[in-house]
């Protein structure tokens, strides 16, 4: 549900400076009391995080090595058998590829479109505050509602998009957007782009606003065109923020669940089955906890790989910029 990460330079994880203390004796005393208070204040957070996140993850890993099925009353250690079964399974490979495809395409479109939005919103104009608020609306609408909304807009019989496409003459017969193998994944991507582009736009806008206007002014005086200034000033300056925003987006896109669950149910012919929906079905419809847990572990490993690739890429870019 949530991804948290530093996206701007104002939020760092570095240690705060130690507070100035009047005397040595005073420091020891205050330190101990502060330490106790601090521990007491932090304890509930740590306990909750351990209980609701760390423990379940560890248990998932543990379950992935077992064959646990309440229906068959089985629970025994099977080593990596679940993983072997998954890697040989056509359904798993299909869901894995679908998820990667969805992640790559939606992240790319959302980053580019978000950059476009941000460039427009970065210009001062009358009513900008309102436009910025309006842009937030798709992000704020619950994903389940978004799914229904696109199901309605793109309905194969009475959908308004089909009506408009027919009127304009782009198509001869209505398209079954959610029921046709050729269109279903595209439909999911489109709905996701609609919902998430505002989020990307706002992150990129924050980066754009940190570019000092004086740089643009002096470049303009030197005769640089606005396109030239965009390429040589804006892009290099916002690149780190842009890449981090894309990374956060990609990690989140990889977990997509709501849209395919509600809009297509993973169909048609498993063309929109993603790892989250597949795991959910294995866990809760099939009650195969071992196999389902192994799916989630492989999912996590893939996410870690994506994060690592991005990290390497970002590190290399930084080096290029410095060198």
């Amino acid at each position, binding site marked *: 549900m949530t991804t948290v990460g530093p996206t701007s330079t104002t939020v760092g994880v570095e240690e705060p400076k130690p507070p100035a203390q009047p005397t040595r004796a005073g420091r020891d005393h205050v330190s101990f009391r502060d330490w106790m208070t601090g521990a007491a204040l932090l304890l509930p957070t740590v306990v909750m995080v351990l209980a609701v996140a760390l423990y379940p993850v560890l248990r998932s890993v543990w379950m992935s090595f077992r064959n646990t099925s309440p229906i068959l009353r089985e629970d025994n250690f099977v080593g990596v058998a679940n993983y072997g079964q998954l890697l040989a399974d056509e359904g798993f490979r299909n869901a894995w590829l679908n998820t990667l495809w969805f992640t790559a395409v939606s992240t790319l479109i959302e980053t580019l479109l978000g950059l476009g939005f941000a460039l427009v919103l970065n210009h001062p104009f009358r009513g900008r505050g309102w436009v910025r608020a309006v842009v937030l609306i798709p992000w704020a609408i619950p994903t*389940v509602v978004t799914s229904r909304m696109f199901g309605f807009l793109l309905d194969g019989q009475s959908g308004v998009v089909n009506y408009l496409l027919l009127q304009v003459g782009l198509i001869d017969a209505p398209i079954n957007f959610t029921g046709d193998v050729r269109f279903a994944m595209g439909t999911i991507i489109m709905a996701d782009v609609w919902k*998430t582009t505002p989020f990307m736009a706002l992150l990129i806008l924050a980066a754009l606003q940190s570019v000092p206007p004086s740089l643009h002014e002096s470049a303009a005086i030197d005769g640089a065109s*606005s396109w030239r200034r965009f390429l040589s000033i804006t892009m290099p300056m916002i690149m780190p923020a842009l890449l981090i925003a894309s990374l956060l987006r990609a990690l989140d896109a990889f977990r997509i669940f709501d849209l395919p669950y509600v809009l297509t149910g993973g169909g048609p012919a498993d063309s929109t089955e993603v790892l989250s929906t597949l795991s959910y079905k294995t866990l809760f419809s099939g009650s195969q906890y071992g196999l389902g847990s192994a799916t989630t572990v492989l999912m996590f490993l893939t996410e870690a790989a994506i994060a690592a690739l991005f990290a390497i890429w970002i590190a290399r870019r930084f080096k290029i910029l410095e060198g």
Partner: protein
Amino acid sequence: MTAATTTAIGAAAPRTRSRANLTVSRTLRRVLFDVAVGLIVLWSLTPFLWQLNASFQPDRNLSAAVPTWLPFPGGTLDHYRSVFGERHFQGYIVNSVIVAGTATLVGLFIAMAGSYALARLPLPGKAVVLGLILGISMFPQIALVAPLYLVLRPLHLLNTYEGLGFSYMGLSLPLMVFIMYAFFRGIPREMEEAAAIDGASTIRTIWSIVIPLALPGVVTAGLIAFMLNWQELMLALAFTSTPDRQTVPVGIANFRALFFTPWGDMSAASVAVTIPIVILVLLFQKRIIAGITAGGVKE
């Protein structure tokens, strides 16, 4: 885009008319820019406006070959009557308010204490705790669902407000801690030090000095966490099984009718649960944008 048009016009026009030219290109830029703004607004609003329209249309208009563009004349409140009458959708709304509201409020207090300790107090291993919280928010949610389900079941907490609320609270903590941590770090230390010298205890300092100053951050964290909890689907699907405990997203996801898709009822329900969120967003847009950019938040 604007740059390209400038050069295109500049190249095509004779040199002597360069001044008139500049005005033309400036006007053109202005128009293109306004079009871009208009497209952004249209893109953001149209799908929801279309659903709003559908929520007032009688069923025969919704299944007609030609769409009806406006809800008047001939609009109807039947879908809202059906949603809040026979479908008893207010039940889901009450459940969502209880679960998401309590989880957010209680979580906010826990996160407030935790993020203050992390931002201000001298504790060993703070970086580890922050790293842990960050790392954990990266786990795919689906990896938590089954184990949590297996924890809640023996405790008889499945299909209860407590079970779902507890899970939401834990899952929204990292986000809240992160947003408030950023805000607490931005508050000048002098105020707290002055309070400490005057003999105020840490708790008292937090309550009467820090919280009021960090209130924008607290509100931001609470709002964003509430919005995420309000729309959460996966856990709600897995942990609740009857309409008297199911939340709004489950209600909308399970919306079915026997013989046709009830687009009208569905739109009415969607509008009813979305309007309050949209109002919140419009009222608190500055806070929310600050929270998104500070915490890198996403559903």
